[in-house]
Each structure stands twice: as C-alpha cells, then as structure tokens.
C-alpha cells in the first residue's frame, strides 16, 4: 500500500515535470522563431506570405515535443505501467 502511494506520488511529480519542462522548452523555441520571423518581416515585408507556411510548419515541429510529452503524461496519468509492478 505504501509502495503504491509512493509510486503515485512520484508519478505525479514526473507528470508535472514532463508538462512543465515541455511547455517551457516549446515556449522558448516559439519565442525565438517568432522574433526571427518579425525581424525578417521588418527587413523584407514582401517575404511575409512566403514565410507564413514555413512558420506554421516549424511551429508544428517545435510543438511536436510538447504534444508527445502531453501524450506521455496522459499515459502515466491514466494507464501507468509502473503500477503493474505493485499489483502483481
């Protein structure tokens, strides 16, 4: 019983770290890319339409790590594989 509570507690901390650090990393990446886009647009405004699609794709790539992190966090929240060790 104590082991179960311990695993759940550490899993909760892990989920928080996965979501929090993933969100922080994605936000830093998006911030850097948006700053570069605005800088590029200020230098060459005619390039804005051409850059738009690429910015969208790169936003998706930067967010991919966060989305994978969300999926992993949900796996640990709803179908925690570590709990099977205790239940056996």
């Amino acid at each position, binding site marked *: 019983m104590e082991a179960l509570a311990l695993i759940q507690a550490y899993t909760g901390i892990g989920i928080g770290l996965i979501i929090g650090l993933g969100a922080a990393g994605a936000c830093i990446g*998006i911030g850097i890319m*948006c700053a570069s*886009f*605005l800088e590029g*647009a*200020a230098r060459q*405004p005619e*390039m*804005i*339409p*051409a*850059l*738009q*699609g*690429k*910015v*969208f*794709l*790169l*936003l*998706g*790539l930067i*967010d*991919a790590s*966060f*989305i*994978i992190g*969300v*999926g*992993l966090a*949900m*796996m640990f*929240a*709803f*179908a925690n*594989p570590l709990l099977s060790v205790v239940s056996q």
Partner: protein
Amino acid sequence: MAALETNQSATQTYRNMLRWQAIAMLVVALVAGALAGMPAGISALLGGGAVIVGAWFAAKIAEKGQSQTQATAVLLNLLKAEAVKILIVAMILFAVFKLYQSLVPFALIAGLAATALFSGAALAKSQTPV
C-alpha cells in the same frame, strides 16, 4: 498575382503536411497491428488521428489569415491556430484514454510521435525558396 501564388503554395504546404502525417500514421498503425495485434493498430490510429485532426483545424485557421499583410497579424493568427491544435489534441487524447478500454499505450504514443514529427516533412517538399 505573386500573392495569389504564395497563398496557393501555402495551402499546398498544409496539404503536404497532412498527407505526410497520414502516411506516417498508417505505417505506424500497420507495424503496431502486425506486431501486437488489432488493439495496438487501433491505438496507433487513434494517437495519430488526434494529431491529424488538430493539424487540420489549425491549417484551416491558418488558411483564413493568409490574406493578411501585417507581420503581427499573421503571427497572431498562426499562434491562434497552434493553440487550437494543442487544445484539440489534448481533448482527443483525454477522451481516448478515458473511453477506449483495450488501449495499448505504447502504440498510441508511437502513432502520436510519428505523426507529430512528420509534420516537418512537408518542409522538404516546399516549392517557395526562402
């Protein structure tokens, strides 16, 4: 004329992205299904499908703002699209984890990861040089 062409190429880029994501999802689902059975294949399809549905909504929002000429307006529109995408993916994943009883979590994560990462594959097919 040039603006129309770039708008068409951006739309083409979004379509390429969705196509690559669908291919990645199907490949992972087939591999998962062959290795671990039908529930694993369905789980991979659900994981990849969540990302594809989110990306489709995001692409629709991004397409709406293509005619904007101000950089800040374009950027805000793209960030709005990305926020909607994350929200939709999180909601679908939550529903899948709650409702699908015979879920294979590792297959779902594999489908999700492959589909999310392959969104960048459309960059290689991009026609407009920058």
